[in-house]
């Protein structure tokens, strides 16, 4: 290695006698130099510097406000609201019982219809460029046939990677999960259970076979 003579000198002889002083003063001067540059810069450069500074200022203001909030703990001041109700009516939303009953009947009917039908809210289709990251390979990094998955995946316990030359889809080990937190809808308690397999991914059979878990995926 070539550039380690400074480090060697420091190790052998210690720092220069005025090193820390100089460092401190230089850093202190940076503030003024930065400001001078920002004021003197012309044209597009000046505008870019100004934009960057403004963004920093806005961010700083927000963090300060956040800290400010938590330091004082005032009791919540409830204002007297209109629409006073007596004690026996508090806590009651006035949905009519009839509607609630018909809703439960409809829910029961839906549940009876299909066992595998899970009440999935509208699932947004995931685009390919969001799901995969293009990996360049080859000596000149021109080949682009490899893809790396950017979402959580599940690979079975007996999984071994294909030889790197033939591997088209890479599933990084950092995004591989074996356990999932499952909440029972009626009991309202959460369990940490092992995943057995990915049953169906709504975005397509390719994703199902890859074992990628996105929103709306049915997992065993």
């Amino acid at each position, binding site marked *: 290695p070539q550039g380690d003579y400074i480090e060697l000198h420091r190790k052998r002889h210690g720092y220069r006698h005025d090193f820390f002083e100089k460092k401190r003063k230089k850093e202190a001067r940076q503030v003024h130099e930065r400001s001078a540059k920002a004021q003197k810069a012309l044209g597009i450069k000046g505008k870019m510097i100004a934009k960057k500074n403004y963004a920093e200022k806005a961010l700083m203001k927000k963090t300060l406000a956040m800290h400010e909030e938590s330091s004082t703990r005032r009791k919540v001041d*409830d204002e007297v609201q209109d629409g006073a109700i*007596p*004690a026996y009516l508090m806590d009651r939303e006035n949905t009519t019982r009839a509607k609630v009953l018909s809703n439960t009947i409809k829910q029961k009917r839906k549940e009876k219809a299909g066992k595998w039908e899970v009440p999935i809210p509208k699932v947004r289709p995931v685009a390919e460029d969001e799901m995969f990251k293009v990996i360049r390979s080859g000596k000149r990094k021109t080949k682009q046939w490899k893809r790396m998955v950017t979402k959580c995946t599940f690979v079975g316990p007996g999984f071994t990677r294909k030889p790197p030359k033939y591997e088209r889809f890479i599933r990084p080990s950092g995004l591989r999960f074996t356990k999932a937190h499952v909440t029972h809808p009626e009991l309202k308690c959460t369990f940490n259970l092992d995943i057995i397999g990915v049953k169906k991914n709504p975005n397509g059979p390719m994703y199902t076979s890859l074992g990628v878990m996105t929103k709306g995926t049915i997992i065993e």
Partner: protein
Amino acid sequence: MEVETEQGETGKSVMCVLTDPEGTTLGGTMYLPQNVGPIQLQQIVNTLLKNEEKLPYAFYISNQELLVPLGNYLEKNKVSMEKTLSIVYQPQAVFRIRPVNRCSATIAGHTEAVLSVAFSPDGRQLASGSGDTTVRLWDLNTQTPMFTCTGHKNWVLCIAWSPDGKHLVSGSKSGELQCWDPQTGKPAGNPLTGHKKWITGISWEPVHLNAPCRRFVSASKDGDARIWDISLKKCVICLSGHTLAVTCVKWGGDGVIYTGSQDCTIKVWETSQGKLIRELKGHGHWVNSLALSTEYVLRTGAFDHTGKQYSSPEEMKKVALERYNKMKGNAPERLVSGSDDFTMFLWEPAVSKHHKVRMTGHQQLVNHVYFSPDGQWVASASFDKSVKLWNGTTGEFVAAFRGHVGPVYQISWSADSRLLLSGSKDSTLK
């Protein structure tokens, strides 16, 4: 013993025995001529009981009231003459209350909805709490406002008089309780804090347990009930145990506190230490309201319809104790709870922790249950627009009143137990 009959002793006679509501017979079996009606029966009962004034009584044969002479009743119901007919007599209130047809006075003053009202136990004053955070005191003889008490920060949800009439406590949505002096309308000290959420109910300790009334219990949405001492101006005991809001609290006549809560249970607490004595389970949903058979007497203390004023606390305690014992009789205190699961339970908490009777029949949640002042009937108001009347001792269904077109929110009895008033969301009172 001369019994006056309109005609002579001709006609067939019936073998009858008079029993009081608890089952003990009064006098032996006797032959009564068939033209004997309720008036003559009253005379018989009065002489048998050796009452000095002629008290009015109502008579029931197998839970149906006897209004016509015996002969007509027998013909209509075809009761056999072989068996002894058992006639139950019930004392009625001596005074009569005139039914109200129209609003006698509209007293203006509150700027927002009136959320809770309470008559003073001696019947002279009325206190009302409202959404405009004030408590107003009204004089009933002149029907004019007396005082306006400000001091609460939020809606005044509950209000309660002490049974000796000396203190008034109101609870608000901010969880604070404020005591007032009803003679001057000024706050009697600082607000009592301790509850974290709004107050759902207040109940005072009965006069016959403690002569100058000092303690009361307040229930709140945060799930605990606190016993406060008004002379010390602080919370003495905190009864925590409910997991959800406490919706209703009542201080019973034997010195226990009943709390009904949204966690579907009713807990019975002991008052000196604040320990849980019993837990009454059985409801499937929130317990909305509790009612005690002796409630009227506990609330009014020593005052009754005669309008007498008492000077010393000991005298009040004695008179209140007499009234309480008379009201209670030999039977244990009864408790009725109404719930969101459309049913009500009748309990005898001193006897067992299982309910005695389950009163079903409502098609919507039961919002309010109320014993009649003499303890004979229980009325229940429900969101299914009906008011149902049940027997106060056995819990049997008696009648349903349909007439409201909106959910019925609250009920109230007249002091002589003859009239029942119900208020509903459809803005009418029936």
